[in-house]
């Protein structure tokens, strides 16, 4: 509860292109990450759900824990909520 206070999303692995929201996030909100970066939420992100840290092309790998957890079903924009509507494991 010091210099890290105020972070709204947790980056688990440096290679990840998604982070985990620590609280419900509204569209347009500034989301400070645990690594110091800030992304702007494009959509609502429910608590414990994933926010895209950069644009991911359709078919592109979504990486969390430094590993591929699935592939984008369509283009995912930076700051967008990442879940079953735009992510699955089908290659």
């Amino acid at each position: 509860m010091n210099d890290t206070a105020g972070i709204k999303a947790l980056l688990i692995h440096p290679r990840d292109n998604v982070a985990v929201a620590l609280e419900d996030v509204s569209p347009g909100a500034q989301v400070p990450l645990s690594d110091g970066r800030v992304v702007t939420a494009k959509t609502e992100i429910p608590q414990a759900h994933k926010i895209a840290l950069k644009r991911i092309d359709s078919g592109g790998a979504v990486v969390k824990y430094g590993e591929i957890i699935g592939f984008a079903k369509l283009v995912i924009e930076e700051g967008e909520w990442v879940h079953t509507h735009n992510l699955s494991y089908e290659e």
Partner: protein
Amino acid sequence: MSDFLGFIRSDGLVGIRNHVLVLPTVSCANGTVDLIRKILPEVTSVFHSHGCGRAGKDLEIHMRTLVNIGKNPNVAAVVVVGLGCEVIKADWIASGISASGKPVEIVEIQKEGGSRSTAEKAVEICKSFLESVEKHQREPASFAEVLLGLECGGSDAFSGITANPAVGLVSDWLVSKGGTVILTENTEMIGTSHILKRRAINPEVACKVESVIVEAEERTKNVLGPMASIVIAPGNMDGGMTTIQEKSLGCITKAGSTQILEVVDYGMSPTEKGLIIMDGPGYDTESMAGLAAGGAQVILFTTGRGTPAGFPCVPVIKIASNSNTYKAMEDDIDINAGVMLEGESLQCVSEMIINKLVAVLNGEKTRSEYNSLDGVLCLYTSLPSF
């Protein structure tokens, strides 16, 4: 080397507790075990959930698990309580345990003339064991002698982002000190065989890792059929998990990032030092019995929803993934990794866990030890009983 103070056993293993264990071979002997522990609460007693009616692979699993729990270095001496006519004989179990060099005695209910006289005889033996183990002194030991078991139960959406990654750093720390970490719960590795295989030290281990996970996937499909997708349940999805790979990664992150040196069967001791996979079930109490039999002196147990489960001869350090659960179950939980959701760093939480772990190695009691040292032994079973 003096990283902590432990009890050095005659087989060279290092215990962090000094239990006199009362171990039944069959559930029929549980009443007698209960009599013993009521007369002599200083003993550590377990109750058997099975015993007879086992065959084939299960017979082998149950025998080795009972023997290996007796051989766990936290156990200083054992009294095996048999009935007499059970499938798994008390003298088999006792002779298996005595290979470790620790004192073992047998009492058999049918031979001693019933529950009371058996309990009385066992109490006399336990008293003399207690007297001799009280003389044991803790001696300097190295972290390289530590086998740490990993467990998660009652997971929630935060387990995979707070408690489990923090435990992952602890696992890496212990491996860097030459110690051993055992990851088990094959059902929680589903969907990650391509990832864990890559971390195997050689192709042979990679092949074993893959077969453990593929078998878990097949068993899940065979038993649950179209319901197999329940392993990633709607509740997981509401909590932010999208794919099974994501869910499983959240579990296996407990094991950190080092190479997998060996794959062992349920209840077997590793022969390597480093990160090990044990082929065991996801169910907490069965899984912890496998870890204890594998020689784990201590278990790190992450939980989202909160659970009081401990293990009779192995201290279990409980780590909550969120502050609400920690506050609601402070009597049962040792560490709150939920502070990460309030701004604390992963590094800092992992250091909190390491400090607690070292204190527990040196004798500090965990919440589960304060609550109860006795318990029911749930052993993994793959076949029907008859």
